């Protein structure tokens, strides 16, 4: 069994699926010879050939648009956009076409494609390399937005995303690309989409999170346990469509919820979770739902980036506030 980082698990999933499904193709900027700027696609061109793993001209609208075209004709494109901050030219193709091809043609043409992109802050990168705008995509009906937060889930969710008959935007939290390792058996077993994962059972409060924030949330839960607060931690994983059932079930037991994400708080998906709780779980709530997120400011450059994202202390303070009300 392999002890892998998150980015290595992405690579392992791509390799598995390419070996087992010859319609899967990988392309994008610098994914071939260079193996991706984060090395997510390293070795794939050697293994599967330049026909199935190739570098494209530098154009994101083109990458997404080609994918739509290929997907409708029997391929499963798994393109990479180098950073989420450069995904916006592709937005048009995703929102205007990939997300609605099935619906528009009443199922005649479909778009089984997975657009992968690293996202989030925390690596001292230049401007536009730190965005967390998953909510843009979650707002589009017809597209799934999947975010792994561990090597095991990266592997299993990516396999399922590729096998899914509909378009998936697969966002990889680059801050934790190499933060820790896990045993990730290369058995080709997918993990369910549209399902939240409880990563730590608890009874006092439910912490709902995704992406790189899962790390601080997990650490906060550990420190809170020492104080006698027993947190349940939930990784939403598929942030759209959202797994309401798991959220509601958990909060029906704990009675309290704190939502933690890195994206700007206003219009962020924490609001969607809170709305689910307000409309369908109000009677199990013993305290107001609290959201902890990035501020409503441009993700700052390196000097301030760790002031922007929710840190362990901010999460703990939010939990205390929730416990005390």
């Amino acid at each position: 069994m392999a002890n892998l980082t998150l980015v290595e698990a992405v690579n392992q999933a791509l390799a598995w699926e390419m070996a087992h499904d010859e319609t899967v193709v990988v392309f994008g900027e610098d994914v071939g010879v260079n193996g991706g700027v984060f090395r997510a696609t390293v070795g794939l061109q050697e293994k599967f050939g330049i026909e199935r793993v190739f570098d494209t001209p530098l154009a994101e609208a083109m990458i997404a648009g080609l994918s739509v075209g290929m997907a409708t004709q029997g391929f499963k494109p798994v393109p990479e956009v180098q950073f989420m901050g450069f995904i916006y030219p592709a937005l048009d193709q995703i929102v205007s076409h990939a997300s609605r091809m099935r619906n528009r043609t009443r199922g005649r043409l479909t778009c089984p494609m997975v657009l992968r992109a690293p996202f989030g802050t925390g690596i001292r990168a230049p401007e536009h390399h730190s965005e967390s705008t998953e909510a843009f995509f979650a707002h589009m009906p017809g597209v799934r937005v999947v975010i792994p937060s561990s090597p095991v889930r990266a592997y299993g969710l990516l396999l399922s995303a590729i096998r899914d008959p509909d378009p998936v935007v697969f966002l990889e939290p680059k801050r934790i690309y190499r933060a820790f390792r896990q045993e990730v058996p290369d058995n080709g077993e997918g993990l369910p989409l549209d399902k939240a994962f409880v990563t730590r059972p608890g009874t006092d409060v439910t912490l709902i999170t995704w992406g790189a924030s899962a790390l601080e949330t997990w650490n906060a839960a550990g420190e809170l346990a020492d104080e006698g607060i027993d947190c349940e931690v939930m990784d939403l994983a598929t942030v759209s469509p959202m797994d309401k059932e798991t959220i509601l079930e958990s909060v029906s037991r704990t009675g309290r919820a704190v939502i933690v994400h890195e994206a700007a708080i206003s219009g962020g998906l924490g609001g969607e979770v809170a709305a689910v709780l307000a409309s369908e779980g109000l009677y199990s709530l013993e305290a107001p739902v609290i959201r902890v997120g990035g501020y409503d400011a441009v993700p700052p450059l390196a000097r301030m980036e760790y002031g922007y994202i929710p840190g362990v202390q901010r999460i703990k303070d939010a939990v205390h506030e929730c416990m005390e009300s």
Partner: protein
Amino acid sequence: MPVVAQFEITYTQFLDEHGKAQQELPEFAADADEMARMYRFMHLTRVFDRRCINLQRTGQVGTIASSNGHEAAQIGLAAAMRPEDVLAPSYREHGAVIWRGVRMSQLLAVWGGDERGHNWDGARHDFPYCVPIATQCLHAAGAALAFKMRGDEACAVALCGDGATSEGAFYEALNAAGAMNLPVVFWVTNNRYAISMPVEGQTAAQTLAQKAIAVGISGEQVDGNDLIAVRNAAEIATQRARSGGGATLVEALSYRLADHTTADDATRYRPDEEVEQASRRAPLHRMKRFMEARFGWTDEQETALIEELEAEVEKEVEAYLATPRPKIEEIFEHQFANMPAALEAQREIARRYPVPD
């Protein structure tokens, strides 16, 4: 069948790789002071760049893009611009930006992760470094439209790379410039690579300059490592723009002599021999030969110049390192002219949490 349209793309070089004149030189090349000034800035660009890389290695700035190999393309272009023109640079164009009057300490701030650097002194109406590829080409076209509408005798200059010519924004900017007859120059420094992608992978076109033809603007290719060819082309293109003659696309042939950025390892995708060969054609090398032959430039002068520039850069590095850290409040203060109450509340929360260094 009748030929309905025919085009050609010219290539201009004045100095060969040994600094020898290949044809009669333009007037400015006889101006010893002006040539010395440009040569000095080319060296300054190199010295600054070297120091940047070194600061990155020691963790004092973040990921940074090197301008190694671009010295002639940047300085020759910037030198042809007037203060009232506007520059829309990509992230690699430190030399051009410094020539325009921006302090090196402020550029270091940008690469050191501090937004205040972009609120730079000098060249106040120039655009900040642009990271999303090719998007600045549209801004330059828009600035040019503003000049045109106001009747200003000024032009806008967008700087981008070979990879940028594949983006929709690049084509849209060129097309707008043609359709609206805008006073703008699109300057493509073709350094042969977009990260790992060689230019042959970007396009099947023989030149990038010919993309001008499709939109009805002027296009030409120059030796981007030849300061004189660059300055000459830039003067013609900017003058054409300012005098209502329309837009120009210049493709400056060069080579990226460094990794793409400090986060890149170019040995993964290009052979050492290629880099070695290209470094023999490096712009500074060529200019040195020229300065020696034309103006009796000596090795002693060269050494003294580099020492002087190193000291100048060091002062800027010190100024950068001595700048107090930004405060977390600042990330809120420039979101809007008038801060919404909700944001003010967030600022108060942020104040409570120390930012780890």
